[in-house]
Structure formats: C-alpha cells, structure tokens
C-alpha cells in the first residue's frame, strides 16, 4: 500500500482546523501561518494527485478502503476518478487562495478553523465511495458554512445562514432515507449489509419503480444543493450575505456537490430511473438557465447578479448531465470546474469592490475603468470566461454541453442556447454600468488592484486562459470515466448513446472559430 494520499487530503485540513482552534487567540500570526501552510500543503497534495493520476484509466484510483462501522457494513472508502479528480484539485487550489487572499476582518482564528474544516468536508464529499460516508461529509460541510455565513456575513446573515442550513437539510432528509433503503434492498441481493457505492451500483438491481423512488429521494437533496429551479431560493440570499471567502467556496466547489452527486450517485446507482426522469430534469435545467439569466438581468446588487448567474450556469451543467451523451457529460464535468473558476473569481472581484466602496449596488458604481484600469481588465477577463467567449474556459464546457445535448435533447438545447446570449446581456450590461463612463465623486478615489489581490487573481486568470486554450489534458482525464459511466448506463438499461465513446477533439482548433 502506497502513501494514503486521499485520506491525507481529508485528514490534513481537519488536523489543521483542530490546530488552529487550539492555538492562542493572542498569536494571530501563528494562526494565519498554520492555516496557510495546511491549505497550501493540501493544495500541493492535490497537484501531486493530478500528476500521478493514470490518464486512460476510467476506474477509481488511489482507492483507500478500511472498515469503519462493522455492524452496519460501513467503510472508509475513498477513491478518485476522472469525474471527481478536477473537483478535488479545484478544492485544493481554491482554499489556499481564499485563505491567503481574503481578510475576514475579525475573529481570524475561528474563521480559519471553520475554513479548514470546510475544506476537509469538501474533500471527503468528493472522494467518498461509501453512501454513508458521503452523507456524513455532505452534511458536515453545512456546519462550517453556516457559521461562516452567520459569523462573518453581511446584514441579513442570520436569516440567510439559517435558510441555507434548513433547505439543505430538507433535501438530506430524503436522501438519508433513500440511502438506508438502498442499502437494505441491496442486502437482499448481496447477502450482507453494505453501503459501498461501487458494490451496490455494480451488483444490485432494483425493481423499476423502487429505483425511481430512490432516485428521486437522492435527486431532491442534490437539486437543492445545485440549486435547481424551483429549489434555488436559498442561493441568492446565502451568496449575497456570505463573506467573500464563503461566497467563493460556495460557488466554487460547494454547489458542485449537487451536480457531482447527481452524476456519481443518481446516475450511477439508478441509471434506468435517471433516464426515465431526464425530461423532468432537462426541463427544470432549461427553466433554470432562462430564469437565472432573466433574474440576473434585473438585479441591482452586483453580488446577487452573480448569484443568479450561478443558477443559470448550473442549469447548463444539469442539462449536460441528463443529455446522456459522452460529450455532454464530459462538458458538464468540465463546466463544473469552469464555473468554479470564473464565478469564484467574480465573487472575489465583487468582494474587492465592496471592500473599497462598501456597496454592491450597481447604481452607486460608475466609471471604474478610468480610475482602475487593471482591475477592470481582470474583471473583464473573468466576466468573458463566465459568458463563455471562445479562447476562455467557459466556452469549451458550454460548447461541449450544447453539441452533446443537441443529439438527444434537441429542443431543450435550442432553448438553452438562448441562455448563452442572455449571459452576455446581463454581464456586459453590468460591466458597462459599473466600469464605463465618467467616475463620479464617490468613485473617483477607487484604488487600483493591489499586489496581493493581483497575486490571488492571477492563478484564476491563468487557469481560465490555459483551459480555454488547451483543454486537452483535462478532457483526456475526464472522458474515460464519463465513457465508463455511459457504458454502465447502457449495460444496465440497454440505452444507446448516439455519440460513439471516442475522445472528442476540441480545444486546439476551437480558437479558430469566431
């Protein structure tokens, strides 16, 4: 057995959180140092994981499996494949940036401790291959996020934090019953009680109707987390009231728990039920895309605008997931990362604006391009990535989703494509109002991008441009696992995917397109 890298990805931040909590409040520099070291070390581990990941292997790698709760057949089972790999890396990269780059203003010790605990929980959620273990992490991340929003957020923070906590718990309530039922029914076929995802998915078959109910129980929890229309109402509140660091993490990785969960647990465990419900989910996804875009256009608060744009973007990911083609799911998986980078960076920038001006109202901001051109340029790049302009990462994901979905869900795709245009509308319009024109009195002293801020933004922009120009390394790792998932669906249901599972050749020649 080699070095247990996945277990350390969970353990290192957890231990770091404990250390930070135990350090004296009077030594803030030590607290900060430990937090930075822990998160950077975890980030380095994810990079190491990325470099030693076997590209062509579609199965779970670096698997670590130990018995945990014997009487219930629960094990500590971690593994990573192409679908979860980049989410893990994104988590590993985002946290150090957030910890280094964003100042929580008060109670550094508690803030950093919660942050690290959140990182451990996120890592665990993306790596778990045991239903019980996944549920544990899925629920535990609520606690640090609740306290981050409640403790360091803005005026309406208590309402937003409570709403966030309770909404997610309602979904989890259904999922927990679903998980237990799944394991109990699988026991009749496997001969023993187990919560192991892979064993149940590969060996157990559920009666059609049962599987559909179970799928819906899981899907409710994930739909709240994504969030899908009409379960999205917690998101604008949570995002707007959360401190910048919380928003970045929430948008960057936490929402992906929903879309990732749908793929990893929903589709993998209950392929027939997922296919059966696809029209419902495609429709909700398209409604989410349009509704999110229209609602974003109407927003007066810049942060709320970005929050609604998340609803629209995640609609694309759900659309791709339920299109059931190799390209669309690959695109959806990639778009999870893209959205994390671009929306994460957008929240970071909005946070910087708030730091300077103490307002997020679009109407109160004007002409910032004149006084802070570098800041405006950074905002521009990130925004264009979010719109999905060719050459930047957002384009690759959206393009793959749209062409992949067009094969199986034509009319939904046609409607969804208008969402791309709407995205350009609300973001460009917002940019125009905030950055163009002559700065008025209040905005004239808007400070330029500082070195530290630039240092935090640079990795985002670097990754945005790199994956936009050269997505091949990423797609090469995602695709085998996606194809394996589609093969699994075909084997279980007899479904034929219209696109042959061959590597998609995009990226290198994409830039030539207008």
């Amino acid at each position, binding site marked *: 057995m080699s070095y247990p890298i996945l277990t350390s990805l969970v353990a290192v931040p957890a231990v770091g959180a404990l250390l930070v909590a135990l350090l004296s409040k009077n030594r803030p520099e030590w607290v900060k140092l430990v937090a930075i070291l822990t998160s950077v070390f975890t980030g380095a581990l994810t990079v190491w994981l990325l470099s030693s990941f076997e590209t062509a292997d579609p199965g779970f790698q670096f698997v670590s499996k130990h018995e945990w709760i014997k*009487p219930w057949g629960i094990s500590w089972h971690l593994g990573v494949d192409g679908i979860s790999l980049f989410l893990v890396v994104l988590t590993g990269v985002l946290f150090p940036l957030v910890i280094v780059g964003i100042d929580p203003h008060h109670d550094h010790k508690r803030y950093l401790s919660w942050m690290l605990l959140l990182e451990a929980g996120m890592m665990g959620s993306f790596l778990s291959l045991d239903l019980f273990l996944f549920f544990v992490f899925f*629920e535990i991340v609520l606690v640090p996020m609740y306290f981050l929003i409640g403790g360091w957020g803005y005026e309406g923070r*208590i309402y937003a934090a409570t709403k966030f906590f309770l909404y997610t718990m309602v979904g989890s309530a259904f999922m927990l019953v679903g998980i237990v039922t799944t394991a109990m029914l699988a026991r009749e076929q496997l001969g023993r009680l187990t919560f192991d995802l892979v064993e149940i998915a590969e060996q157990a078959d559920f009666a059609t109707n049962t599987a559909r109910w179970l799928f819906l129980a899981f899907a409710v929890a994930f739909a709240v987390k994504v969030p899908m229309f009409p379960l999205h109402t917690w998101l604008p509140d949570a995002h707007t009231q959360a401190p910048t660091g919380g928003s970045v993490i929430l948008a960057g990785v936490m929402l992906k728990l929903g879309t990732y969960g749908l793929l990893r647990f929903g589709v993998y465990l209950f392929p027939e039920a997922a296919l059966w419900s696809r029209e419902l989910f495609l429709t909700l996804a398209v409604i989410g895309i349009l509704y999110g875009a229209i609602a974003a256009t109407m927003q007066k608060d810049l942060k709320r605008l970005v929050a609604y744009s998340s609803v629209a973007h995640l609609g694309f990911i759900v659309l791709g997931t339920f299109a059931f083609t190799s390209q669309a799911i690959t695109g959806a998986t990639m778009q999870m990362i893209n959205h994390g980078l671009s929306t994460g960076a957008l929240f970071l920038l909005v946070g910087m604006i708030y730091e300077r001006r103490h307002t997020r109202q679009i109407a109160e901001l004007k002409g910032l391009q004149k006084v802070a051109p570098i800041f405006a340029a950074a905002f521009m790049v990130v925004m264009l990535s979010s719109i999905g302009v060719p050459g930047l990462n957002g384009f690759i994901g959206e393009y793959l989703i749209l062409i992949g979905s067009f094969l199986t869900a034509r009319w939904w795709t046609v409607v969804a494509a208008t969402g791309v245009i709407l995205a350009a509308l609300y973001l460009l319009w917002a940019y125009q109002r905030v950055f163009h024109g002559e700065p008025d009195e209040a905005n004239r002293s808007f400070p330029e991008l500082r070195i530290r801020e630039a240092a935090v933004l640079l990795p985002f922009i670097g990754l945005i441009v790199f994956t936009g120009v050269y997505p091949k390394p990423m797609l090469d790792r995602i695709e085998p696992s996606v194809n394996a998932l589609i093969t699994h669906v075909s084997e279980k249901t007899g479904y034929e995917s219209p696109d042959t599972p061959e590597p998609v050749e995009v990226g290198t020649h994409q830039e030539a397109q207008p």
Partner: protein
Amino acid sequence: MADTFTAPTIAWFDLTPILVLLGAALLLLLVGALTPRWPRGLYAATTATAAGTAMVLSFVLWDDVTDQGARTLVADAVILDGFSSFATIAICAAVLLACLVTDDYLRREQLDGPEIYALYLTSAIGGVVMAMANDLIVLFIGLEVLSMSFYVLAASHRRRIESQESGLKYFVLGGFSSAFFLYGVALIYGGSGSTRYDEIVTAFNDVVPTERADALVLAGVALLVVGLAFKVSAVPFHFWTPDVYQGAPTPITAFMASAGKVGAFAAMLRVLTEALPNWRDDWRPVVWVLSVLTLVVGSVLAVVQTNVKRMLAYSSISHAGFILVGVEAAAHRAGEADPGQGVSASLLYLLLYAVLVLGTFAVVSLVARTGDGNTDLSAFRGLGRTRPALALGMTVLLLAQAGVPLTSGFIAKFGVIEAAVDENSYAIAIIAMLASVIAAYLYLRIMVSMWIADPEPADEALEPVRTPFSTVLAVVLAVGFTLVVGVAPGWIVSAAENATTIVHQVGP
C-alpha cells in the same frame, strides 16, 4: 400452591445493582439525617459511587447472562437479560452525570443536603425495576417509585414558586396517568387471567379468544398505552412536559429527561413486545400515530418557544417521537425469534440521548446563574465571546441533538431510521427526518444566540457565567462521549444489538 406460601429463592447477586442503589439511598437518608452536614461534595460522591458500582455490576451481570442465558428472578417477578443490563447502565450513567451537575447547583442555591441525591437513587431504582419487570404489578411499582421521586424532585427548590408549581402539576397529571395504567393492568388481568408477561402470552396461545372475546384485553392495552405514553411524554399526552421541565430545577430537569425517559421507554418496549405481541397488529398503528404526532407537534412547538428550557422540553418530546419510530419498527417483529433492529435501535437512542440531554441541561444550568432564572434565549447572548469553550461544548451537543453526522445524535437517528426502513416503514422514516429538520431550526436559534447575536445592555448587567469544576466535567464527559460515539460508533452499536439478542424468551 393455594394453601401454603413458599418463599421464592432469591438470587441475591443478580439483584445487586438494585441493592447497591437502594443501600446508598438508605444510607443517605438515615445517616444523612442523623449526622451534621457532610463535607462538600460528599453527598454527590456517595451517590455517584453507588451509581458507578451499580453500573459495573450490570456489566458483570451482562457478561454473565451472555454466557448463562437470560433468567427470571424472585419467582419470575423480574427478568435479568441483556436488555435490562443495558437499560440499567444507561440509568446509572444518567445518575452519575446528574450528580456532577447537581452538586454545584445545590451549593449555589444553598440547598445542599442528602434528600435530592436519595431521590435520584430511588428514582433510578424505579427505572431499573421498570426495565426488568416481568409482571405488570412489578412494573407498576417501578413506575410509581420513579414517579413519586420525580414529583418531589420537581418541587425540590423550596424558594422558587415555579418549582412548586411544576411539582404539583406533575403530581396531579402523573397520578391521573397512573390510574389509567392501573386500570389497564386490571383489564388485562381480567381478560387473560394473569399479570405476568409470559402468562399473558401463553393465555392467548392456550385459549385463542374467538369473536371479540379479547375486548377486555384490548381495552386494557389501550389504557396501558395511555399510561406509558404519558410517561414518555408522547403527544397528545405531553402537556405536562414543558411546564414541568421549565419549572423544575435545571439539573433535575436534565435527570428527568434522561433517566425518566430510559425507564419509561424500556418499560414500554418490554410490555409491548414481550407481554402483548399477540395484539401487535392492534397497538402498532397506535404507536405509529403517536410517533408521528409526537415528532411533528414536538418539533413545531419547540421552534416557537423563547425559553431555552421550554425549547429543550419540546425537543425532548420530538426525540421521544424518534424513539417511538424505533418502537414502531420493533412492533413489526414483536414476539418473533428474531427481534429485528427496532428494540436495539431504540435502546441505543435512549442511551445516547440520555447523555446528550444531560450535557445540554448542564450548560443551561450554568447559564441560568444563581437563582436558576435566566433561561430565556437572551441569556445565552454573547456566551461565545465570554465563555467560548462552554459555548463550543454546547454547540456540539446541540448539533448532536439536531442529528449532524460525526456526533452520537446522528448515530442514534440513523439506527432508528435504519430499523424503520428495514420494516418497510418508509413514511414514518421520512416524517421523522423532516421533523428533525424543523427541530434543527431550534438548535440553530440557540447557536445564533451564543455566537452571532450581540449582547444587549440588559444582558451585560447579568452576573458572569461561572464554570465550576464538576459541572464542567459533566459537560466535558457528555461532549467527549458524543464525539467518540459519533466518530467510532461500531462498538456501541454492537453492544446494543448484543443486549437485545439476549432477551428472556417468552412461552414454551
């Protein structure tokens, strides 16, 4: 048999847990009354030692029944098996923790004396007898011993009118419910010819009642369930709970919520599954309805309270609903050789909840400050700033009550849900989980008060929250137990399952 009375042979050693508790109670009452005030902490230490000894003896006996098999004692009056050992251990743990909290409390309120501790011990005996009973009359004795002690305990703060009120309310309503219970016993005796659990079962098997001939028994079962539902504070028999919990001295509330619940639920599980399995299709729907009502009403009413003790009283009602989910699951298998998971899940829930609720009320008793009056939500404001460690402990306990993973509360809930799903009771499982979401809001409110809300000038005027050693020790033990069980629950789950596989087999 009819002419001469033959004294039963008594296996004295098998009764030692009860005897130790009884001995200590008598010692406190007799010697304590005749001697000047003992040095500080000695009353509590004596009680805790007795509870600890009884606990150890229960472990020994548990080991013994694992080897030798379950048996009945004192002419079949009580049963010694894994179930009774487990319940005894849970009750003794509650006494132990309650002593730690009570010691500080009584000295702060200048009420120190042996009476409270003696009453703790007698009520513990009542609880143990309820869990061990093999006869409805014995069960009634246990129930009355437990209840009488609680009535006095609730009223034991001599200078607080709320405490008196709480004791009186509990007494009147409790007496009422005991009457129901006793009438139920009488009817069952009339219908089956016996009050002994195993003879009730055989009476049914021997003379299969035809054409509604068991109406007497059914009426008896209904009244029995009412009496027990009152004791476990199931809705709609819960009305006493918020008033009594709020008015009683805080450590005593903690003790009632833990030991009282263990005793009452142990009795309920035993009576329903061992004495009345033949009527399980009749009482199971009743338990179902009780459970759903208890879950929903308990959670919803908990949320709208502003007094923390009242909130926790309603939350304990909602927890009772969760345990009833386990009872409902046990009902599906009542009387069968394989008892299923229901009984063990309920037992486990009882033990874990007993520790949780004691820890939680221990913190409340500190925040209530001298006079035991500051139990409004506002009294918790700023605790995160002034006493961060205490607030953190409380947060863990509240999260556990909400059922967040990596705490014992999650394990307890998971076990019950698993048991319910195993018996295909999906609806009740989902209702229970949704009710726990509603209840979670209440725990969040307390956390918001501690960590996020800013103290107001009126709160600043309150005396600072003191952290005396033994209460803090109780909180630390409760939090430690909560986390250890949350992270590594395998052993305790196995223990609960083991306890319920060694049950006294009824019938031939």
